[in-house]
């Protein structure tokens, strides 16, 4: 699973996701992409599950690019612990995704295969997604 190698601070504020993607909303590497339509926090586990769904479906024929990185540490308090006594310990990593963000890109496979692969990947993610193709290439 993806996670930062080292961080300046162990714990981060929860934060809120406002607005739409300011960058990373166009295809940069592959011919096909999976674009988020809603704001959400996507965990490293979900990214990995989606990546596996894609690579398994395309039978490792093409190439997959992951355009998001989980750099937000999410903390949780243990079960049956009263409120207070400080913030919980970091449990997993997540990525804040804004609407419009291209999360995955894919190349080297047919459009039908890519569409199905991303359909499977989208099922692993907590956001509504859209399959995108470059303008002029079956869009």
């Amino acid at each position, binding site marked *: 699973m993806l996670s930062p190698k080292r961080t300046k601070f162990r714990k981060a504020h929860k934060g809120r996701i406002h607005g739409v993607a300011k960058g990373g909303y166009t295809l940069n590497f592959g011919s096909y992409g999976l674009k988020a339509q809603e704001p959400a926090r996507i965990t490293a586990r979900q990214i990995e599950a989606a990546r*596996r769904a894609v690579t398994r479906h395309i039978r490792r024929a093409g190439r997959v690019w992951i355009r998001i990185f989980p750099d937000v540490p999410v903390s949780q308090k243990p079960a049956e612990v009263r409120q207070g006594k400080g913030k919980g310990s970091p449990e997993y990593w997540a990525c804040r995704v804004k609407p419009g963000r291209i999360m995955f890109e894919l190349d080297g496979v047919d459009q039908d295969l890519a569409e199905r692969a991303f359909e499977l990947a989208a099922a692993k993610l907590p956001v509504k997604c859209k399959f995108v193709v470059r303008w*002029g290439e079956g869009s």
Partner: protein
Amino acid sequence: MAEFETISAEIRERAGKGAARAARRAGRVPAVIYGDNKDPVIVTVDRRDVIKQLQRGGIQTRLFDVKTDQGTHRTLIRDVHFDPVTDQPIHMDFLRVTRRTVLNVEVPVTFLNEDKCEGLTQGGMLQIVRNTVELTCPAVDIPDHLEIDLTPFNLGDSIHFSAVSNVPEGITAVIDDRDFTIATIIAPRGLLSAASEEEGETEGGEAAADEGGES
């Protein structure tokens, strides 16, 4: 002299985001026509016409006659802005061109004979580094696309700008200090190593479960 396609436009009375949003709600795309040392003209174009042109590909290499009530402008589409979420066109820039206009333009690259390429038939993958190449050329002589014949290339080969077969005379790439890479033919991971990092942990069990579930 290149052929001009025709696109009809309506003059916009008001500028600004309020008017632009009203135009978008009415199914039109706000646009501006500028260049050739003349005053800019603000217009709107039918969104369906724009999408039709976008779907053909290479929209920035084709020349357009923009017809308005006040006359026709010979133009090139210089920029198209898209909504980040819906990918609908939200604004366009038309640049007026003349016979003398020379500009830098992004021309799409097309790859030919993929089925005859030895590297690809062996299971390699064409990894495109540049989908477009920026060329310096007269506005009336912009090539539709650049062609690269993939026949002579093998696994591991890099395809450079010198491999482009249809660069017209007098047209140069903006990057002229080196023979830059346009694509490479890479071996897919499955070909490089039989055992991948994920196989050991989950592939066997989950793959069987997945396939069972799907069927």
